[in-house]
Structure formats: C-alpha cells, structure tokens
C-alpha cells in the first residue's frame, strides 16, 4: 500500500535497472548465489559469514573458474570438452617432474601450459577437420591423457619442493595482507575479465558465438569456422593448463589420479551460469557465478555437518533445479 505514495519518477530508475538485470544471462545465477549464501550464513552465522571463510571459498573456486572460463568458450561455440580433469592431472605431473628435474620454475609452469595447449589444439583439429563429435573426441582424450599422466608419473605421486608456487592459493602472510586475497585468486579474476572482453568485444569472440548460434550461417558469412574452432579448443587448453598449475600449488605434488570428474563440475558451472549445451549462449560472468555457487553449496553443507552422501545428492539436485528455473525465467 505504501507503494502508492511513491511517485513514478522515483520508481523508474530501479525498474529500468531491474529490467536490465532480468535480461542479463547471469541474472539468475547472481540471485541464486546471493540467496544460497544468505541461507547458509543464516544457518551458520558464526562460521560462514566470516571473511576468512569467504577467502577460503575463493581459493577453492579458482581452479574451477579458470578451467570453466575456457569451457565457456567451448560450450558457446557449440562444443564440449570432457578431457579437463585428465589434463589438470597431467599438468600437475608435468610441473612436478620438471621441478624435480631441476628446471627453473617458469619453465616448469610453461611446460604444463604448453602441453595443455597442444592437447586442446589436437582436440580442435580432430573436431574441426576430421568432423568427429566433440563429445567423442574429448571422451577419448580424457582416457588417453589420464593414462599418459599415470605413465609419466610411473603411477605414483611425485613429491617435490614447490619452490614458492604453493603461495598462489595459500592464506596470505601478514606482510602481504594488502593483497586481500591470494595471487591465484587475482589471476583467476584477471583471466575471467580478459576472457569476458574477448568473448564480447573481439571479432574472434563474436565468431565463436556465431558458430554456436548457427554454424551454416557463420560459414555462409565467411567466418573461418574450422580455424576458429581449433583456436577455441587451444585457448581452452591454455586455461586448463593454468588451472593445472593452480591445482599443483594446492597439492604441492604431482598426482596422476587427481581431478577425476573435474570436467563435470566445470561443465556444471558453465551451464548454471546460463550456458546452453546447444551453443550460442553463455557468459563468462555467469560461469564465474556458477562456479562460486557450487563452492558455496559444498562448503555450506560441510559447515552444517551434513554427511558427504547427502551433500552429493543435494549438489546434483541443485544443478538440475538451477538450470530448470533459469529456463522458465527466460521463457517468461
């Protein structure tokens, strides 16, 4: 009733803002993230609302975010990449082997990223030139690379001195408190911003959307479809390489059995963030929100002391529910 006393002019701005917000592809995930965080913070106010917990959650999300940004490009182009988990494991092994072999730190890091780019480019060539379905190509790559990681590591964990790499995602020492969050989180943020700009404001980014939206049209308009697809998978590979370095910094060892099933979390982040597996739709910002949402749910359930089997069931149900609700919102 009090709304009647408000003049229309006062209402206009919030309304226009609300409308713009409702149209944005990431609006749904943003609302969901706020609600879910609020829900857990209300249930466990003394632990969940503390800043250290937020920083911890950001650190836990960094690996997924970096890989999921690459996956966003792949999914927007109408593809999929199932090899992410295996490539991350391979990356940790490559870093560990390189460090143990006495190579300088930057070389070890670049080696992992280079391997990852190579894998992505090969996937892209098989998909674009040999016309094999992305699902099949990357399903094969998932198995091949898991095997490669195990072979390279002789089926063992590779323990090694991380030479400072561990500080990427570790709690900040007092001296560097000005950074607010550890450097790995800033890296993930920077990568996300850069990728969002590439997707939105470069010719390459628009061609990626065009291919996912209507590949025949893109071809007809002279878009170099094959080259663009290969570039998408190679770029996504580069980001998975960075994710594997972040993962190594958390593990501080090379583990060929690490990150099994990570690709599903990554794909879920993209899809919760508004990405469509049919291509053409998805935003980097939405993906970041989707990744955060899943961390909050996992972390919140742990704080509530739920058993892990309950947590798994809740996580699965929330993924399906989030995407279904978003579909309703858009059709409305």
């Amino acid at each position, binding site marked *: 009733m009090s709304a009647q006393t408000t003049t229309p002019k006062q209402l206009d701005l919030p309304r226009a803002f609300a409308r713009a917000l409702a149209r944005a592809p990431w609006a749904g995930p943003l609302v969901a993230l706020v609600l879910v965080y609020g829900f857990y913070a209300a249930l466990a106010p003394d632990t969940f609302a503390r800043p250290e917990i937020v920083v911890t959650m950001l650190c836990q999300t960094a690996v997924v975010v970096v890989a999921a940004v690459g996956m966003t490009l792949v999914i927007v182009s109408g593809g999929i990449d199932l090899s992410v988990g295996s490539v991350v494991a391979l990356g940790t092994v490559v870093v560990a082997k390189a460090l143990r072999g006495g190579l300088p730190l930057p070389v070890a890091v670049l080696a992992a990223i280079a391997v990852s780019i190579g894998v992505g480019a090969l996937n892209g060539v098989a998909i674009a030139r040999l016309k094999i379905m992305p699902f099949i190509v990357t399903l094969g790559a998932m198995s091949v690379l898991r095997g490669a990681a195990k072979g390279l590591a002789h089926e063992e964990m590779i323990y090694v001195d991380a030479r400072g790499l561990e500080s990427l995602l570790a709690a900040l020492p007092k001296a560097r408190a000005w950074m607010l969050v550890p450097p790995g989180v800033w890296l993930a943020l920077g990568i996300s911003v850069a990728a969002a*700009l590439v997707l939105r*404001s*470069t*010719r390459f980014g*628009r*061609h990626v*959307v*065009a291919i*996912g*939206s*209507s590949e*025949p*049209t*893109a*071809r*007809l*308009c*002279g*878009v170099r479809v094959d080259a663009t697809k290969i570039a998408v998978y190679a770029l996504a590979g580069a980001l998975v390489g960075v994710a594997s370095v972040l993962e190594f910094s958390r593990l501080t060892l090379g583990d060929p059995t690490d990150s099994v099933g990570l690709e599903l979390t990554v794909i879920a982040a993209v899809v919760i963030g508004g990405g469509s597996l049919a291509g*053409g*739709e998805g935003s980097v910002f939405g993906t970041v929100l989707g990744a955060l949402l899943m961390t909050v749910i996992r972390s919140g359930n742990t704080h509530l002391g739920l058993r892990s089997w309950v947590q798994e069931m809740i996580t699965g149900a929330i993924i399906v529910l989030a995407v279904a609700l978003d579909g309703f919102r858009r059709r409305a």
Partner: protein
Amino acid sequence: MTAVRDPGAAPLLEIRGVSKRFGATRALSSIDLDVRAGEVHAVLGENGAGKSTLMKVLGGALKPDDGALRLDGAPFTPRDPRQARRAGVAVVHQERALCPHLTVAENVFLGDEPTRGPWLDARAMRTRSAALLTQLAGEARASRTDPSAKVASLPPGDQQLVEIARALAAPSPRVIVFDEPTSTLDAADVARLFEAIRALRARGLAVVYVSHFLEEVRAIADRFTVLRDGAKVAEGEVASSTIDGWVSAMAGRAIEALYPRSARAADPSREVVLEARALAGVRLPRDASFTLRRGEVLGIAGLVGAGRTELLRAIFGLDPIARGALRVLHVEGAARPHARLEAGVGMLSEDRAHEGVALARSIADNVGLSRLPWIVREGAQRAIGQRWIERLGIRAPSVDAPVSALSGGNQQKVALARLLHHDVDVLLLDEPTRGVDVASKATLYGVVDELATRGKAVLLVSSQVPELLGVCDRIAVMARGVLGPARPVSEWTEEAILAEATATATATAA
C-alpha cells in the same frame, strides 16, 4: 520480342553455359543468363526447376561443373561466399541465414567486422547498420529496429531486413540476389521490400529476384528468365509478356499417364473423418477449413512455405493449435501423435531422412515400429517386413537390410508401409513422391487409389500439380497460410492452381 542483348547496356553479370549435376540429377544444364546494371531480373520456375542451385552458384556456395561467369567483363570464379561478397555479389537467402544469438549489428557485419586494434568497433557497427537500415526501410521503420537488439527478438519482416542490410554491407555491392524473399513476409513487409529493391535499382545495382509469386514479379521485375527441369525455357521483357505465358512456360511438361485410378465417385453421404474449422497454428497455418470423408483423396496444393506441412503437423499433434476447431475421427480438438495413431491417423513426413524412416534400421524394424506387440519376436517382425516388401514391390537385398541401402523411392515405400501396417483410417501424406523415381511413384499412386477404394481417407500435400490433378478427388490451394475452398478436381486446371498458389495475398485480414 525485344532483343535480349542491347549493345547500349552491356551486362554486368554474364552467365554462360553453366551446368551442375548432383549424382544422376541434372540440376542445371547449360544456362545462359545476362543481368544488367540498374535492372531487376526475375528467375522463375516451379519447385525443383533449378533456381536455388543457380543462385548458389552465383553466390559462391556451389561450384558449377561447366560454364563460366563474368562480372563486369572479368572472370568471376568465387571459391566461397566470402569471395563472392568481396567481388560484389551478395545473396539474401531463402532460408533465413542469421545467428539468432547475435545482435542486429553483429549479424549485418558477420564475417567482415570493422575493428579498432584488437577490439570490435561496436559503435561503427551500430551506426553503419542503423544507416543501412534507414536507407533500406526509411526512418520510421529503421528506428524500430535497434541495432543492439538480439535478432531472435525481431519479427520475421525485420529479420529479412537485417539480411538485406548484410548484403548491402559488402565492400562494394554490385549484384544482390534475392532468393524467395517474400515467402514469409506479409503484404506490408512485401511493399517495403519492393521500395528497398527499387532504391537499389536506382543506385545502379543489379538485382536478381527469384520468386514463385508471379504478381510480385510483374510488379518489381524488368526482365525475366524461366527455368524448367534445370534448363532455360523462356526469357524476355516483363512489360511485353503475360503471367499466363510464364505459367505455361513453367508448367510446360506433358502430364504422364501414371495415375492408376479406379472408378470412384465422391459420395457425400459417407462419414466425415476429418473436419477443420478456421484452424490456425502458432505461426502457420493461419486459417484452414475443410472436411475429409471416407473414400476420398483431398489434395492440398501450394508453394513451399505456404503452411501445408504445418497444417498436417497441427492435425497430427506435432505442433500446437492456436485457434479454430478440429475433429479427427471421433476425437474433438488437439491430441498427441500417440493418441492420433491409436485413433487411426497416420502421418508421412516430407522429411524422409529424419522423420520418415529410421535409416540405420532394417525394413522389418521400420515397418513394425508404430505397432509393436508387448513382446517383440524377431521372426514375426521379419515376416511382417517380408509381407510388405512383396505387397509394395520394395526392391531390397533382404528384409534385414538397413533402409539407408535402398533407393529414395523404396525408402518411401517402407515409410508408407509403416502406416499401412498400422492400418490407419486417415492418412496425412506430405510430399510422398519427393525424390522418388517414376516407377515407385506409380506404385505409390496405386496404393493411394486402393486405400480410397477401401474406404480410407487421404489428405495429400504435394507441390507437383499434375500429381494432385491425377490422384485427388478434390483439391484446395494453400497460400501464405490460408487454405482456399476445396473444389472437385474436374473444376481445376494446372494454370488455375498455380495462379491461386502464387496470388499475392492482399486481403490479409479477410
């Protein structure tokens, strides 16, 4: 007849002896065509006459097997659409070729985006596409089309405008090809399109205009060429020719005696099995009323895109019904395909490869698919398949052969056998003879005749007018989503059907 080559106006685009084959089909045989700067040149012909193939050759999407193209006197051999566009030949496609997730401006410049350093020049894209839209459609309409709006959110007429703007955004457009631009437009949009085309002509561009709508061609074109079965059969000035002359040139072939027809007579006392009153789908059809009785074959003529397939889909429950009344057998209103089949209605899709047959499965699997018992015994299914192979004379290595191994005509027999085995009372057949050889056609016509004799009811959609005249008891013509009155076949001629199908709907709110 005016001289085709006027020395005063050298052709901008010359097509000489262009031929194209697809497998055994001759899509184009040795076509000659000249298009001059500042003219609208119409290319006419029935479905399958080769118009779209010729346009694909022009636009660089297909390479001719033989012959040569020259643009402004220089050889024109585009490797792909991008090269054709760079050289100045841009195509506005029949199937809307837009990316629905991109904005208007992004679609206009897709593949040729202006950039500033690494970034897209979004402002230039917006202002230039707004300018192109204004130039095309005038201030008032262009202001309705926001360059930053997603293309998916635009009505069809505006989407068409975006496509034309894209053609004009080419570096230096010389020839613009319009392939069936008006089949999804309403009368007001058509009028605006024509203004835009006249403006292009006034700027000295050459326009190639492909259309079925003969009255529109009369209104917009300066010269015309008629194709039939891939060959040029007529050309001339629009002003010194008649629509009747074009129609006979388009239809010119002799009607073959391949329609077996027993002495059936329309019997108005028989049960009405299908009745539609002002039936409308979400987009198409817009208004369809008819009745179908037992023992009757009712033909639906019309152009591709007129809404005939959509009518059958709505009846069969594949698409929702927006308005109007429908009764099929004893079921009032809409029903799902499953319920339709249960009630005794079967549909044969025009898209054989995707909706007609399961290509990878055997004949036996296909024929029995819609009427499987709870426990499927392989032997029984194979016996059923064998029975239909014999009845319809399906030429197949064995009953276990995948349907993909059969010829088009035999695949279609398999698809029809599925309906026959289900023993439906009402058959909805959509282009049943498309891509089918003459011998198989005769078999299919024989089956339709036999069905009618046995008291089944058939609704037959076809773009082949002679086929409709040969097979049906009554025919109705659908144009732009509106179904005309059904009249006995004796009251129709081929010319009358073509004329009604190609009439421009002026009274849209009738």
